[in-house]
Structures are given as C-alpha cells and as structure tokens.
C-alpha cells in the first residue's frame, strides 16, 4: 500500500499544473492580495479585521477544492478510461487500493499546501497560526475527505473522463463560490453565507478555528456526514471499467 501511495505521490509531483494550483496557488494569491495596501488595512466593516485575515479560510477552500474536485476525478476517470484500474484487477491487489492511495495523496498534498500558506501568513502578514489547532486540523481533514468523496462519486458516475471533468467543474465552481473565492463572503447576502457555512469543506469552521475559537460542531459534522454518504455510495456504485 505504501508503495502505491509513494508512486502516486511521485506522479502527482510530476504534473506541474497540479503542483502549481494545489500547492502554490493559495499562497501566491495571498501574496498578490497582500501586496495591495487597502487589503492590508483593518476595516471596521468586518470587525477591524483586514481583508486578508477574513480571506484565509477561502484560500484553504481553494486548495482543498482543487485537489478533491479537480485532480481526483480527472485522475481516477483517466485511470479507468486507460485501463489502469483494469490492469490492477488482473493482479492480486484490488484496484480500490489505487483509489485509496489517491485520497491519501490528496491529504498529503493538502497538508503541504496549508503548511506553506500558514508559514507565509505568519511570517509575511503577521496572521496568527490557527488559534484552535485541533479544531483546524479536524476541519481541514474532514474538508479534504468530504471533497475527495464527492470527487470519487463524480468519477464513479461519469461515463468517461471528459464528462467527469465537466461535472466536477460545476461542483468545483459552486464550492469555490460559496467558499468566497469569487465574491468575498462578507459581501454576500446573509442567505448565501449561511448556505456556504454548511457546504463542504466548511469555510466558516475553517475561519473560526483559524482566527476565532473552536469550530461549530454542526459545521464540522456536515462535511463528516457528506464524507460518509458520498464515500459509501461511490464505493458501491464505482465502475472499474
């Protein structure tokens, strides 16, 4: 199993676009936004926080959404289409291990991306490390798992790699929108903010555990439930060829 994970991790690192988007992009975006003085000035409009403070959770969403809803379904659907999964099924090892390895790679890649982001936050912009480390860790992990489960569900149901990419993009856009990537969340109507709080990966819980207090259990519970349901359905309905 370790060898499969290790191989998949190496393959991930060999795709430059993947590495740039999933690992470097959130940090680059932070640096670009942070270079604008207005976004570095405390604003009474959002409780004397700076724009970049309020935006950190969105940066986490971007990293996790890219891994779970872009990289994962594309890789898995391509593996099925090219017969990689089928070849696995001719060996003593079940092809499900390859999917599990993909999720593990996502968790490692997500962790790398977030550590880099936290370091730059702390060193360059003087943003605190997560106030509630355990809550932050759990929220991130569940966020990554819930988006990965949705990604696998898409890969399970889509007839081919092309439509998997299409469906995943729609969900990716929704997650990014509610996560505040396009329109900062404080500019959204109350209703959209509420919806976003409960959608995976749980942007409000990420924000709370990073710069507030402990995350709301319900906001963490919803991604956990989604992980369970989407993961089970994906496992049961997955087509190996």
């Amino acid at each position, binding site marked *: 199993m370790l*060898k*499969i994970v290790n*191989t998949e991790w*190496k*393959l991930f690192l*060999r*795709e430059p676009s993947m590495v740039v988007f999933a690992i470097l992009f959130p940090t680059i975006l932070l640096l670009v936004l942070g270079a604008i003085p207005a976004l570095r000035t405390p604003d009474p409009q959002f409780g004397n926080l700076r724009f970049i403070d309020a935006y950190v959770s969105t940066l986490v969403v971007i990293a996790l959404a890219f891994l779970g809803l872009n990289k994962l379904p594309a890789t898995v659907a391509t*593996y099925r289409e*090219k*017969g*990689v999964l*089928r*070849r696995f*099924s*001719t*060996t*003593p*090892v079940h092809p499900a291990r390859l999917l599990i390895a993909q999720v593990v790679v996502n968790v490692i890649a997500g962790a790398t991306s977030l550590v880099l982001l936290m370091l730059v936050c702390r060193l360059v912009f003087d943003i605190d490390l997560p106030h509630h480390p355990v809550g932050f860790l759990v929220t991130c992990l569940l966020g990554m798992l819930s988006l990965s489960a949705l990604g696998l569900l898409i890969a399970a149901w889509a007839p081919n790699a092309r439509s998997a990419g299409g469906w995943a993009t729609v969900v990716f856009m929704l997650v990014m929108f509610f996560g505040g990537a396009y329109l900062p969340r404080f500019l959204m109507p109350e209703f959209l903010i509420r919806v976003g709080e409960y959608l995976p990966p749980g942007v409000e819980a990420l924000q709370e555990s990073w710069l507030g207090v402990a995350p709301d259990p319900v906001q963490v519970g919803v991604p956990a439930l989604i992980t369970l349901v989407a993961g089970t359905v994906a496992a049961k309905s997955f087509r190996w060829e």
Partner: protein
Amino acid sequence: MAIIEVVDLVKRYDRKVAVDGVSFTVDEGEIFGILGPNGAGKTTTVECVEGLRSPDGGTIRVDGLDPQRDRVKLRTRLGVQLQQSELPDRIRVGEALDLYASFYRDSADWRELLARLDLADRVRTEYRKLSGGQKQRVSIALALIGKPKVAVLDELTTGLDPQARRDTWSLVEQIRDSGVTVVLVTHFMEEAERLCDRIALIDAGRLVAVDSPAGLVSRVDGEQRVRFRPATPFDVALLEELPEVSKVEEHGPQLVVTGTGNLLHAVTSMLARNHVVAADLRIEQAGLDDAFIRLTGRTFTE
C-alpha cells in the same frame, strides 16, 4: 497435460450471446491461439478464463482453480496482458515494474525481465515517451512479473509495425521456451499460423475447430494455384487439357492456374515443351484463411 479446461462456456451481454458453448483445453507448455475476426467473442472468452467476467454457463478450470471462486489464487498463477490497457503517462518503466512486483509474494527479478525484453535502457523512461512496441513489451513484462504458469496475451501486436511485430513474435516463443504456457488471442492469420502450436478458431461466438495450423489447413483439400506471366503468347487451351488443372484465369498479362496434385511440375513441363518462358512464377498453397473460408463459409474480414 491440460492446464486450462473450458467446457460449454456461455456468456451473454443483455440479450446478445457473445460466447455460445465454447469448449477447449490448453496443454501445459504450448502456445495456444484463439483466432477469429473482430467481435467473434475471443476477448470475452479469455476474460472469463481470467476471472474478469463471470460466465453465464459452462465450467472453467485454470490449473485446477475456478476463476470466479479462487480469484485471488488465480491471480498469482495467471499473467494477463490486456488489450488496450495503458499505464499512467508519467510513470517510469522501472517504477511500474517495481510497483507491480510488490503485488506478488514471489515475483520475478524485474531488472532481469526488462533486460530479456530489451528494455534495460528504458528503466528511467516515462511511459508516455515509449514507442508502441516498447509499451507492448512493458505490458508483457507486467504480465510475467508474478512468475505465472500461464500468460494470456490479448491482441499483442495490433498497431505495431511489421518489424516490431516480428520482434514480439520471437519474444512470445522465448516465453514459451521458459516454461510458461501462452494463450494468444489474435485476429492475425499470419501470427497464429507462425506462432501457435494449436489454434481454436472462433466465429460469431462459436468454436469452429481446434487443431494445429497444419491440421486446419489440411482440412481444405490440396488445391494450389500457380501464377506466372508468359514471355511469349501461347494457346491457353494447352493448359486446360492437363489433367492436374481445374481452372485457368487470365488477369491482364498474368495467368492463374488452379489445380491439384503435382500442378507445378505439370505446368512447367508443358511450358518447356512449347518453349514458353514463364516470368514471375509463383506458387500459392492453401493457408489458414482458406481454411477459415472453408470452415465458416465466409471470408475472414478484419
């Protein structure tokens, strides 16, 4: 001794019958061909043998194992080269071999295997950068990595250029010589004729015949054709009078003489008696494709 036994295999997709009562046995140490046109049910048949599909009827034994019940055990004794199965683009040849070797308790030395397949200098090459022939050889290597007793090779040479095809053929013979039983699925007559010890001829889901290539050909009676271009014009009726000749056709400047017995000798002595020089003389004997036409009543269309 039989290492694979297939009895009355039936497989349906929805209502369409893909394999309809196919039976054959494969002996240990032979190259056994499964030959037939595209869509004849060859791949479905071997996929049932590999345990990748469950049959709707009949029984299969591979080295005494039931491919459905003993899936896991079967995987260690049967190596499979699938039709159109690729690897991730950026995986290196050595990494792929090392990974697949780790799936088996007792695996072959992959460096030695690559050397045998003439891939030793490609260990660090990414899969996407390999040529078609090299990809096929990697695929063979992966089929052999678990030290199988039987290797199933499905449409091994489809899409390869003639040189790569010939190289691959000698590899298949090497595999057999190393003691592995080979099941070769193909729609190339020439490949089956050249490589296989015995052939199962399959058409439209049914088994037409199982025999050695020579045995199949001998089922078509010994009709031959002699082709040549006479250097000077002469009376074709002289040929038709020969007892060995059944038919004479003129194709432009060429004559095609069909007949039996010692046809070549009869034709050439007649030509010599009449001082006719025959240019581009060629003799054609019945081959597997003639056998196929005779046995199925239709031409073998690829």
